[in-house]
């Protein structure tokens, strides 16, 4: 496993047609997909719970075949205006039923934890964007960015299960540790691996560079706000999922992101309350 070369990582990621939707979100999605009378808003909302589905649908909506003049960067437009209900339902159903992680090969991967990380980061980003009213950042885009921030870990779990297991079976399963280890063993960060996937799947440039530039120190002007928002969301998420979740680090998070402490505190508390309750967490996602 020490010998995974960069080209072979890229080659394997480029072969991925789909990623697993995660069992935690699957039940709700399945319900919605199987309901012939499902309201489109509800379908959009439940699909928004799955990083894999969101990435896949956004990518397809932007593929050349649909010939959209402008990039489609939100799920609602992708489903309603481009792909159509029927295709989305069929594709989602196929992914839910057929694309699954093989627990034999990657025992250490905790899909519940991955999902919580993705969702909390997404909701935090959405709330921060809402509260702060950044000029160049809509709350829907912020949510999607947060949801896709860790998709590289899902890529690793699905495409390199044994290699990732080697990392996960060690002591700490904190994402900070996982992040460092992936960088060390794969020769690139999971953000980079996520970037390769989003590029191959032809997601809008916005999402690609969000991952490509996430840890970069030199940021294009128009990405600074997004990057600050995501870093803050990620830190809030780590604080919440920490065993002894407390708000001691919030002032640092707020200062780094250039946000009022009050805003960060509000978002932190709202998410903290619902962290043990998936239903409540999902409910925390505001409408858009």
């Amino acid at each position, binding site marked *: 496993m020490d010998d995974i070369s960069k080209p072979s990582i890229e080659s394997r990621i*480029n072969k991925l047609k*789909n990623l697993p939707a995660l069992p935690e979100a699957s039940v709700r999605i399945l319900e919605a997909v199987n309901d012939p009378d499902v309201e489109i808003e509800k379908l959009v909302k439940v699909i928004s719970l799955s990083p894999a589905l969101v990435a896949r649908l956004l990518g397809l909506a932007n593929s050349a075949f649909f010939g959209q003049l402008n990039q489609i960067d939100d799920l609602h437009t992708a489903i309603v205006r481009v792909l159509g209900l029927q*295709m989305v339902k069929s594709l989602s159903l196929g992914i839910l039923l057929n694309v699954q992680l093989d627990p034999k090969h990657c025992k250490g991967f905790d899909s519940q934890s991955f999902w919580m990380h993705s969702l909390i980061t997404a909701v935090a980003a959405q709330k921060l964007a809402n509260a702060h009213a950044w000029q160049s950042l809509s709350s829907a885009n912020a949510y999607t960015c947060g949801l896709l921030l860790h998709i590289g870990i899902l890529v690793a779990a699905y495409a390199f299960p044994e290699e990732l297991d080697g990392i996960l079976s060690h002591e700490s399963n904190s994402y900070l540790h996982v992040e460092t280890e992936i960088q060390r063993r794969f020769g690139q960060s999971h953000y980079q691996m996520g970037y390769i996937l989003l590029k191959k799947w032809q997601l809008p440039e916005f999402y690609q560079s969000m991952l490509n530039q996430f840890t970069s120190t030199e940021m294009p002007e128009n990405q600074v706000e997004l990057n600050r928002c995501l870093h803050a969301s990620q830190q809030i998420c780590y604080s919440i999922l920490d065993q002894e979740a407390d708000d001691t680090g919030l002032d640092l998070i707020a200062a780094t992101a250039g946000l009022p402490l009050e805003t960060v505190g509000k978002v932190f508390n709202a998410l903290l309350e619902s962290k043990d309750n998936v239903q409540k967490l999902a409910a925390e996602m505001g409408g858009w």
Partner: protein
Amino acid sequence: MVSGSMLLSLDKDWDGTNVQDLIVDLVNALSAVRSLSEISCEMADEKAVIRLALSCLLSNQDIERCSFFILGDDGSLSNVTGVSVTEQAGSDVLIAQNTMSFRMGEGIIGTAAATGEMQHSSNCIEDERFTSGRDSESMPGSIICTPVFTLHKELIGVLNVSHSEPDFFTVWHMRLLQVFSNILGQLITNRRLFQQMEIQIALRTAELERLVEETRRLKDYYVSMSMQDQLTGLHNRRYFYDQVELAFAQHNRYEYPFCLLMMDIDHFKSINDDFGHAFGDEVLITVAGALKKQVRSTDILVRFGGEEFVIIFVNTSCDNGKTFAERIRDNIKSLKWQIDGKQIQLTMSIGLYCMVPESSNDNRYNDIDQIIHCADTALYRAKANGRDRVEVFETGPLADKP
């Protein structure tokens, strides 16, 4: 056009039984075709068209490398362009196979060209169609080579797609490549036709432009011919009437005075009679040359007919006009010719009419023919008064020329 190896793989390779992969494959295939269909055949460079087409394939498919080998005049297939996934990522590294070429029937690419059928190798290392001597590092795991034809079924070249893994391609890839290569063939055919048409148009346009230019030169030539006296090179009577309008207009608008000189070589007829027309012509040419030196570029000098010349000195007062006229008379008198051992000298009579602002109040003088008539009258008086002199037309009742 489906080769044996492709038929064999029909059932074996297809693992797209899952609806989610099928949808993704379908959309990707349609995307490749759609982007190919959007390439304009108006591009000048065929290589650029092919390169764009390969990019369409690469960005919408899971293949790693594409290349195109074009059929040359010598019957060999040479690599015109290639793109790989790493290039798509933004680096400009060209695949180090640019100079590769195959003969018809040589290797898998040559076989595709010679048979006109798609060739698929699911494991290149073990495939005998691969010509020996290629280093195994740059050798792909699997490859599909598709011949590309024009609309008239002439071979254009071979489209190759490859992946580093053996057994990578499915029947899905082959079906897409069949459609893709058909459209690519049509695109290249159209581009070539378009190019030929452009060349034809450019040729015809150049020819037309040349003709237009020639016509323009001819027209200019004839215009100048009609305005010019062939013997002396001076302007002629027609030109005079053309230009005199301008002098009149300026006189009327700005009250610029002008002087009109009517000049006639004295006893010219006897020169012609005594020494012949050739000498007469020589005299006229010399006199014309001398007159030319006496006028400014804005003045009007013409040969009015026979041995008669006219000058209009624009923006010139009567006094100055008289001075100029005297100077001309002196100048002509000083000219010398040698013929039959004799030295010949001449004189000139000059009638002058001054057009000064006050005189235009009189309607009679506002017409060029009237003015010429006045100058002519003065000239007649100069002749009558002994020749070799300048006479100014005096205002008063117009005298009739006998």
